[in-house]
């Protein structure tokens, strides 16, 4: 029955400490949070950990949320911030970017399945791409969630697809 309630009702209940209401918000939003974490971190296990941390942080800080209808957008922002903290905390950022740049330059000679190719995409392209496939292929929804224009999302998805094709084609040629 609680399933029928809108986010703002569930948020209000969660703000009073109702864990069962928050559990429904988790069920409703977890996969989007996971998509953001995967898009930013490019690592499935890290994405699982940070997605869980994000939902927990969301619960602990839900009283700070003023506009309860904005929960979906707010929890994604919590997730993105935690991903950035995670990269920073592990002194990951520098090594991560250096590795990405190096990977971008090198030809496809090793470990080049689809997952590797996605991992090698720049984060600005990878995040909208991952969200697009997690979000029923709705560029409009992603534009709202990332707070960028619809055409901006389309451009990034297109760039990601073309770059992905290039990486996968390199792989096939190198295997030959």
């Amino acid at each position: 029955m609680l399933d029928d309630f809108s986010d703002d009702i569930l948020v209000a209940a969660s703000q009073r400490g109702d864990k069962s209401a928050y559990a429904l918000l988790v069920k409703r939003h977890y996969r989007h949070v996971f998509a953001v974490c995967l898009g930013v971190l490019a690592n499935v296990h890290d994405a699982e950990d940070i997605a869980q941390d994000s939902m927990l942080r969301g619960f602990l800080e839900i009283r700070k949320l003023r506009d309860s209808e904005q929960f979906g957008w707010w929890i994604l922002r919590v997730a993105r911030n935690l991903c950035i903290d995670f990269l920073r905390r592990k002194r990951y950022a520098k090594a991560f970017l250096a590795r990405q740049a190096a990977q971008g330059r090198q030809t496809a000679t090793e470990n080049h399945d689809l997952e590797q190719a996605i991992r090698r995409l720049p984060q600005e392209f990878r995040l909208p791409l991952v969200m697009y496939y997690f979000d029923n292929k709705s560029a409009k929804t992603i534009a709202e969630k990332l707070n960028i224009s619809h055409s901006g999302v389309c451009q990034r998805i297109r760039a990601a697809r073309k770059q992905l094709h290039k990486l996968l084609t390199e792989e096939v040629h190198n295997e030959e």
Partner: protein
Amino acid sequence: MKSNCDKMKDRIADFITGILPEEETQTFQQHLSECSACRDYALRLQEEEQLLTGFFAKFDENMTDLEDEAINAINRFDTPGQTTVISVGKKIVKNLLIKHAAAAAVIVFVALYFIITYTWISEINECILLSM
């Protein structure tokens, strides 16, 4: 022709991915019917599209387990209400400490002021008495 194909690659990528505006599909399909190179490119992108869709679909298989893990982690924590009471309590204690410290500083400052002033006036009086 080649530059036309280069431009068309954007539209092919958009069409296969599902973001090409409907009004542009006719031009795109017209070009595909005439250009075998672009048809091959479209076919390869279509294969990759299926790979991508399958790749992301596999995450849905254990999404329920991940959601349950997150819910279990939340259930192990105190409710926000309890957390807030503790943090509000800490703030009150912290505020009281600051207020007491400020009051003590004012009292010490006023006392020092009177002591110094009293000493100074006494010394002046002594000087006046000696000079007389």
